[in-house]
């Protein structure tokens, strides 16, 4: 990797070929919750030259700081989780096939017939499925239980794979027209965004970047990262589902789309884990309106981000989440739009460049 020493704080970040190449590396890496090693290395390599302080904490979070200049700097924590959903090998069976367990929320209907990569060496394997010729009509109406699925790595796998090894979908990153297609866009899009923000940190803030672990299994990294940083405020940068598909019945409108592709960054007003500080929501919305950046309000409802842990850490940390919308999260293939990513980066950078202590002066109010 070249040492780009021309990076200067405050310069406007954008999405170009090098950012896309970085996202590709991030998406193709394996970092199942609990073993985020590969993504951690990519992150450290990407930011170490511009970090004023950089450390890996006890859980594996990468905590990096860039100090601004001048008086009255706001200490802003930005969190993006490095981990992804995936699998752990739990048993080798006598027939040479491996039983596995899901890590994170994965619909078992997404698994039969999928290629996977197992372990740190990315050994290729497949989750097989019974030939249709051997199934009955009744059987095909039932879901296949995960305990009945196996990963097959070929007849001579020997002891190259063992219980405890992690696995991910084998999908490789690709750009398709206006879209990005990859596994783990949740939350490598957030990680890539945070790296760009960190490289272009505005002077008016101390940027406290937390590349967190174990988000998908309980927001564990974010909690300790927030404790360590003790920030004035926090933003979780994540990727949230876009369910912007037609209803099966043409007469019915899809009014539960969560977010839509092409509509810009999704600002959270409420999810299952967080009721964001409305001052932060308004700040983002007003910034977007003033700078003419497209944005959308994520429909209130389920789901959660690192903000769910951060906002309740210490004596409370005003928090909000911003997500890049992506279709088909937690499956082998996610689709997001490059333009939504670019607009998310723009919105966050513009908002952070303008933030002052006044935003959080006084009591929380709506």
């Amino acid at each position, binding site marked *: 990797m070249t040492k780009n020493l021309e990076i200067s704080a405050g310069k406007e970040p954008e999405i170009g070929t090098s950012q896309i190449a970085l996202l590709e590396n991030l998406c193709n890496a394996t970092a199942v919750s609990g073993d985020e090693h590969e993504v951690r290395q990519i992150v450290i390599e990407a930011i170490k030259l511009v970090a004023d302080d950089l450390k890996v904490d006890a859980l594996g979070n990468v905590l990096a700081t860039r100090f601004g200049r001048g008086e009255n700097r706001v200490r802003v924590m930005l969190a993006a989780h490095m981990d992804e959903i995936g699998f752990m090998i739990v048993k080798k069976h006598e027939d040479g096939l491996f039983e596995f367990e899901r890590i994170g929320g994965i619909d078992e209907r997404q698994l039969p017939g999928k290629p996977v990569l197992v372990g740190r060496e990315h050994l290729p394997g*497949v989750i097989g499925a019974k030939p249709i010729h051997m199934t009955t009509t009744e059987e095909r109406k039932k879901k296949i239980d995960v305990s009945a699925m196996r990963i097959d790595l070929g007849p001579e796998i020997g002891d190259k794979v063992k219980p405890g090894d992690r696995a991910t979908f084998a999908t490789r990153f690709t750009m*398709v027209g206006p879209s990005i297609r990859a596994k783990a866009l949740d939350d490598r899009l957030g990680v890539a965004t945070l790296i760009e923000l960190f490289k272009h940190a505005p002077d008016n803030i101390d940027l406290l970047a937390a590349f967190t672990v174990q988000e998908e299994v309980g927001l564990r990294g974010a909690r300790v990262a927030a404790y360590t940083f003790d920030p004035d405020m926090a933003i979780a940068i994540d990727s949230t589902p876009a369910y912007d598909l037609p209803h099966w019945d043409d007469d019915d409108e899809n009014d539960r789309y969560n977010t839509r592709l092409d509509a810009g960054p999704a600002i959270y007003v409420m999810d299952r884990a967080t009721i964001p500080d409305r001052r932060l929501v308004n700040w983002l919305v007003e910034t977007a309106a003033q700078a003419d950046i497209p944005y959308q309000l994520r429909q209130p409802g389920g789901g959660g981000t690192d903000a769910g842990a951060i906002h309740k850490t210490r004596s409370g940390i005003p928090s909000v989440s911003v997500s890049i919308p992506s279709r088909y999260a937690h499956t082998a293939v996610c689709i997001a739009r490059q333009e939504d990513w670019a607009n998310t980066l723009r919105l966050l950078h513009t908002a952070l460049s303008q933030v002052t202590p006044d935003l959080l002066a006084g009591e929380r109010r709506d």
Partner: protein
Amino acid sequence: MIDLLALLKKMLSASGLSGYESPIREIIHEAWEPLTDELTVSKIGSLHGLKKGRGAEPRRRVMISVHMDAIGMMVTTIQDGLLRFTEIGGIDDRILPGQLVTVHGREAFPGVIVQPPAHLLPRSAGDGPVEMKYLFVDLGLDSDTVAEKVRIGDTISFAQEPLELTGEALAGHTLDNRVSVAAATLCLEELQNRHHDWDVWAVASAQEEETLGGALTSPFAIRPDIAIVVDVCFAKGLGSSNWRSLPFGEGVGLGYGPNIHPALYKAFEEKAMKLEIPHQRDLMPKMSGTDAMAIQVVAEGIPCMVLGIPLRYMHTPVETVSLKDIRRAGRLMAAFIADCEEACKDLTPDALDQN
């Protein structure tokens, strides 16, 4: 020497759904060109390769039938830039969500099969396996582009890249039945250096997965004395452990049942034993599920043999095969053909009366 893995990967990269075989046919044409004396295409789209024998005319003829068509899907309607589809060949709906595909519109577009969330489906459809009619293909393109470039009836093929597993195992889509095309190619290569009296007609047949159209028409044109069908058979593995499944990578299946002429079975078994080529009897009590079902009843009837290459996870995009079994099938066929006259001496009605 043919690089088997490279040949297979090249064939897997080409589409060729039943009735739409021209992309794969061109690749097979290229592979068979140096190995045959004549290549023609039948009216239904099968590829016929003739490698002439050295016997006195009129020569007898052996036909090798390997179907080249693939299972896949076809666009039924377009809704908000997303494609609904139906199947070509037999596909279990449950393996579809999240699969990579190629949509053959006015150009080839990469896509992914999408399972909509439960709240966008009828109440009864959300929890269990989602039926094909509720699934979509998402091309990642805006709806105007999709409307301009994709039409009802465009084919959709699986696009998962093949994966090399351990022990010379290869996983991918459409190994059914490109592995048998590869075996026939290896056989033709081996015959380059061997004397054979009979004419060899290698047929890459069309439409096996839907209509058996290729297998019904090619033998009528060729009128072979015997036919050897190579197709995949079930390998033991996940959900496939009963008598219908053969151990994986441990030898070619020799089909046994009413589609197969017993004298041909016997001759193949003897040849395999003599050459110490690992093989296993593959019981087909009612029918073989292969081109042999059609070939057997063409014209006055044609004696058939079925060779099976054991395959795991049939009709999924991660079908898995052992390269060893492909080589074995090619070698066994070549050895049999080089010795056809002798091997077929018992091919008489009397053979049907023997046990």
